[in-house]
């Protein structure tokens, strides 16, 4: 059984690779970009779901971690010439002004940097619970952004960074998304994952099981931040330009939307909803443009976000578990589903 499932998983990864190979050469730039965004939002959604869904820490500082990752990756990968062009107000501090790293180590550095910041933030903030934690992390996310706006000689302040080498392609984004999924699934099914869920369910009971609350919360927070940093790095490299305003609360909200719609403790749900929401945000773009109703031309800018906000409200009010709740995709269930169908057909004949 286990062997069969492993083979099926490997086959589907190969199928995905063939699809990426096809998409890479046949899709136009716009479609490729959306697919990249889908994969990046999958990474971001999963990283936030680990913290908010599986460990039950209501944290809203995700955009901050992404900013740390994005800036670290960008500053490490940019060519010396591009750096000189960007930093005309104040020169970039040493040693950043003289090093250029390849993409992968830069991404990892971005992730590690985000995890380190999460460690610093977590030390005081993770002693808080519920709403208070949400407020504190929200504040920290904003503080990171404000710091980035004001450290002219490191981040180039409000001007942002331009000319980030566009290393992100489908192979990178989907490859890292798959690694994230594998790491997260094995983490969740380990004893660490069980401890995370126990903390989410009941802190006092978890503590009396011998679970060190603060240590496990920190681990979850840092791993989540690590992948948020990597996702941020990929995003920066995809867009080619970043500035502090990109990492406002709205970005956190978008990811929160993904995990709430997908199901707060489901990896499968997060993946599906990351794809659906990213594509829907593109498809529904016409809502922001002037619409001709025959008798009048109406333009309501921001209508698109209204739709998503309304959707979020509907889900919170009526489908509190989201798309998948805490259920996960499994080959066994899928095969059962297919095996049952022919039997039903045969029976009705």
């Amino acid at each position: 059984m286990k062997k069969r499932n492993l083979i099926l998983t490997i086959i589907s990864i190969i199928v995905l690779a063939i699809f990426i190979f096809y998409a890479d050469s046949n899709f136009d730039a716009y479609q490729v970009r959306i697919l990249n965004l889908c994969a990046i939002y999958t990474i971001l959604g999963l990283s936030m779901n680990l913290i908010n869904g599986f460990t039950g820490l209501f944290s809203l500082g995700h955009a901050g971690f992404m900013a740390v990752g994005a800036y670290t990756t960008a500053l490490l990968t940019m060519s010396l010439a591009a750096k000189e062009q960007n930093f005309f107000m104040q020169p970039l501090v040493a040693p950043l002004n003289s090093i250029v790293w390849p993409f992968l180590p830069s991404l990892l550095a971005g992730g590690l940097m985000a995890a380190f910041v999460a460690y610093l933030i977590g030390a005081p903030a993770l002693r808080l619970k519920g709403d208070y934690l949400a407020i504190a992390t929200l504040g920290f996310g904003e503080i990171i952004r404000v710091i980035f706006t004001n450290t002219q000689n490191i981040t180039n302040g409000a001007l942002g960074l331009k000319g980030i080498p566009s290393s992100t392609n489908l192979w990178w984004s989907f490859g890292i998304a798959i690694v994230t999924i594998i790491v997260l699934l094995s983490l969740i099914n380990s004893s660490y994952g069980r401890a995370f869920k126990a903390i989410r369910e009941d802190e006092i009971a978890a503590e009396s099981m011998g679970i060190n609350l603060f240590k496990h919360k920190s681990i979850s927070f840092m791993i989540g931040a690590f992948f948020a940093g990597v996702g941020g790095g990929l995003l920066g490299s995809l867009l080619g330009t970043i500035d502090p305003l990109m990492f406002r609360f709205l970005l956190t909200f978008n990811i929160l939307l993904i995990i709430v719609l997908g199901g707060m403790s489901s990896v499968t749900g997060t993946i599906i909803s990351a794809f659906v929401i990213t594509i829907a945000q593109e498809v529904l773009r016409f809502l922001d443009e002037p619409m001709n109703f025959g008798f009048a031309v109406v333009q309501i800018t921001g209508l698109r976000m209204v739709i998503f906000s309304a959707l979020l409200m509907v889900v919170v009010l009526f489908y509190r578990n989201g798309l998948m709740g805490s259920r996960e995709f499994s080959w066994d269930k899928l095969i059962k589903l297919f095996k049952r169908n022919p039997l039903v057909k045969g029976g009705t004949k």
Partner: protein
Amino acid sequence: MMLKIEDLIVSYGGIEALKGVSIEVEEGKIITLVGANGAGKSTTLRSIVGLVKPKSGKIIFEDKNLQNVKTQDLIKMGITLVPEGRRVFPNLSVLENLKLGAFVRKDEANIKSDLEWVYSLFPRLKERTWQLAGTLSGGEQQMLAVGRALMSRPRLMMMDEPSLGLAPLIVKEIFRIIKEVNKKGVTILLIEQNANAALHIADTGYVLETGNIALKGTGKELLSNDDVKKAYLGDSVHL
């Protein structure tokens, strides 16, 4: 003496909840602490597990002062708590709950055999292995809480009001299992409002009254004590 509490004084703000309580828990026995609401039963337990800081007094477990031991480390010393109100993990399966009980243990093979033992104690849990704990009945949740505590292979199991909110038949079943667990060598410190049921299975009982130990004796002695009868048992009680 396995656990020794000496002259424990705990105060919440200005009010003393415990005014010098001394309790001795002998290894291999069932010791029960009975008393009315507000007598200080839970406070005693909370000070043992370190959730409240005593003003003065000593809590010694096997020659070790528990004063500065964190709650999470007690389980490694062999002390486990079945908390009041059961506190199972509602959105995790019965199996996951039980595995969490063995969280600090690393001996996989023994954990497996202990799981079988818990299942044999509570066949109901085995039937519901994959069910979410939150969907179990109150009695089943209490069984799960006890089973989860046993998964840590405790030497001292402290139970806070295991009969709370359960039907009399289930209470009887739980107490039968407590005795069975005790026979396997687990010392039990039982805190109960249901004095009748608790004293029936206890080797030693303490009656707590407004922060003081009012009476101490074997379970049988206390059951036949007139004061205890009047205060806790009513006139005609039969289990």
